[in-house]
């Protein structure tokens, strides 16, 4: 490990670090949730992130997505790759500039031990969950449901249903009058990222 890399990870517990550095996590969506999840998991030292999104950055995204003014108009995954490399250049980032569907999900996320669902449309969330659980029934999928607006921290929770985890308040929908805002979106994204760490580290410790 080169010197800067050693210093970057110097605050990590070495046993925990080696597990995270060898992990592969998939993130479906690079928007409000996905970009925030990616930032946290990159800082946490996850070895490989596989990220897919077909969208481009618009000005209104910046109220919650982890992109910058000069990146407006660019592909989300390309801009995210650039940002992640500036944060943690020691991990591997595999980006896919396309729309995820039932047919390509198993190919794109073949190596992912855990999948984070970071879509905005309810139909896409449903498709992803059903696809993942039927094709990879033993691998966890961490979805988000209900994260719009502001305040009401106490309503945000994580629910486990077999290998499916749901983070959010399972209530507040993005609609007219209730917009997605940075703090609440960030909290739910970080609940997802935090749960990724918990699952990766719990598995390892229960294998000992």
């Amino acid at each position, binding site marked *: 490990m080169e010197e800067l890399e050693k210093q970057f990870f110097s605050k990590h517990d070495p046993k925990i670090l080696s597990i995270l550095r060898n992990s592969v996590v998939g993130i479906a969506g690079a928007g409000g949730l996905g970009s925030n999840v990616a930032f946290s998991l990159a800082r946490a030292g996850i070895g490989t992130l596989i990220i897919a999104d077909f969208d481009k950055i618009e000005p209104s995204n910046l109220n919650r997505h982890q992109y910058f003014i000069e990146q407006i108009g660019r592909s989300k995954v390309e801009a995210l790759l650039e940002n992640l490399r500036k944060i943690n250049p020691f991990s591997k980032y595999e980006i896919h500039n396309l729309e995820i569907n039932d047919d390509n999900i198993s190919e794109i996320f073949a190596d992912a031990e855990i999948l984070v669902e970071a879509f*905005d449309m*309810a139909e896409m969330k449903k498709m992803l969950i*059903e696809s993942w659980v039927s094709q990879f029934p033993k691998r966890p999928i961490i*979805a988000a449901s209900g*994260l719009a607006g502001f305040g009401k921290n106490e309503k945000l929770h994580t629910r486990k*249903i077999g290998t499916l985890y749901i983070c959010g308040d399972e209530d507040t*929908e*993005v609609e007219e009058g209730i917009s997605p805002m940075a703090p609440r979106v960030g909290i739910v994204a970080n609940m997802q990222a935090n749960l990724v760490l918990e699952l990766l580290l719990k598995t390892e410790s229960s294998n000992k």
Partner: protein
Amino acid sequence: MTIDRILKIMNYTFKMIVVKVNDELVKKESYKTKVVPENAEVQIIHLIAGG
């Protein structure tokens, strides 16, 4: 009783849902045919847009 009937009885009008019976995921195509065993644990997760 099929999933479809359970949804009707419980007045579940949400369109975007994921259904698990005894921890096993049941896809939409099977809602009318999958029969829920007695004492089974049925979880209906409503998916909310946003993210």
